């Protein structure tokens, strides 16, 4: 593996760390919450297994994605997925409405929740890291390594940081939108056309800027709508 350290490397690394904090932190929060109502001993096991599965799934997805990203059209699909992940990241929890599925507090139901969440969130995380690493395997591997302690130990820390400074999430959404725009115009199918006819999309950062703005506008307006609905009828939880 040829490791070169340059400015682009550090910019990408910073992006990846930020993405990991947001997307792996989320995953850790789900694991902690899913195990909340378990008896003490089972809780420990639930968290260990949940974190282990999340890490294993990330490695698995990462191995596949390195091969996949050079196939035509897949960067376009990845970019669209990334837009979806970015907007989703910016939305707050909707709050309880309608009936809730009763959680029995059993180990089995906790595991089910964790496995589903791990699969979805690991895929989100790997797509985002792969896009931010611009096909450099060493960055992808670093991104995975950084996400591991965050999944295992990060839940309380990440939660406090994100709740206290929500702007971290907003800027994180913009970052993902930026990367999604970048990835879109480097798909093998589009790259030739972009170079000939619309080089400014790439060279002048028009595509990433548009991607970031798109996510910001959509994410913020959807989030605002959710918050406004919640505030119409304040519902104390205690």
């Amino acid at each position: 593996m040829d490791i070169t350290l340059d400015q682009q490397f550090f910019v990408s690394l910073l992006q990846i760390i930020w993405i990991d904090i947001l997307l792996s932190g989320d995953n850790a929060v789900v694991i902690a919450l899913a195990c909340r109502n378990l008896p003490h001993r089972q809780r420990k096991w639930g968290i260990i297994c949940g974190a282990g599965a999340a890490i294993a799934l990330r490695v698995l997805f990462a191995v596949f994605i390195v091969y996949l990203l050079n196939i035509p059209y897949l960067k376009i699909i990845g970019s669209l997925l990334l837009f979806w992940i970015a907007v989703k990241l910016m939305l707050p929890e909707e709050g309880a409405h309608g009936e809730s599925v009763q959680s029995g507090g059993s180990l089995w139901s906790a595991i089910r929740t964790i496995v589903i969440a791990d699969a979805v969130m690991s895929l989100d995380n790997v797509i985002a890291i792969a896009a931010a690493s611009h096909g450099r395997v060493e960055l992808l591997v670093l991104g995975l390594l950084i996400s591991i302690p965050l999944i295992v130990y990060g839940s309380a820390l990440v939660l406090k940081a994100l709740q206290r400074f929500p702007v971290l999430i907003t800027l994180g959404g913009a970052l993902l939108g930026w990367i999604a725009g970048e990835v879109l115009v480097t798909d093998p199918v589009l790259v030739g056309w972009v170079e000939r006819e619309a080089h400014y999309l790439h060279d002048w950062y028009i595509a990433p800027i548009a991607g970031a703005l798109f996510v910001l506008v959509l994410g913020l307006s959807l989030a605002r709508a959710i918050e406004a609905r919640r505030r119409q009828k304040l519902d104390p939880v205690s």
Partner: protein
Amino acid sequence: MRVLIPVDGSDRSLAAVRYVASTLAPGDTDLEIHVLNVQPPLPSAAATFIDSAVLRDFHGDEGAKALAGARKLLEDAKLRHESSTVVGEVAETIAAYAEQRDCAAIVMATRGLGNAAGLLLGSVAHKVLQLSKVPVTLVK
């Protein structure tokens, strides 16, 4: 008079409770104190996977922890009070609560981030000042 004291559980935020207990309460026997803790919502990506009853529990417990200090102060001062936890964007929810529960004033502490950090990270106190329809007292 009904006064709203938002607290976040930090020692700093208790300054507002102390101020009310020592300055407002002695002169007003009808003083109704509402202590509010606003729990920021979880990111939806995480929340969609978790049962809503568990989420309520979680927010309730975190809220109770954040309210404990204020409750103790008020109980020690033998002052009648109500306390509750609500989930939402912090500043917006504080202003909405004051309006919906007919509070005559809001008394809150500042986080003390300073101008630059406050601008960058979002000062809750500044936002409440902008949004509130009732007088706001900031305690430093």
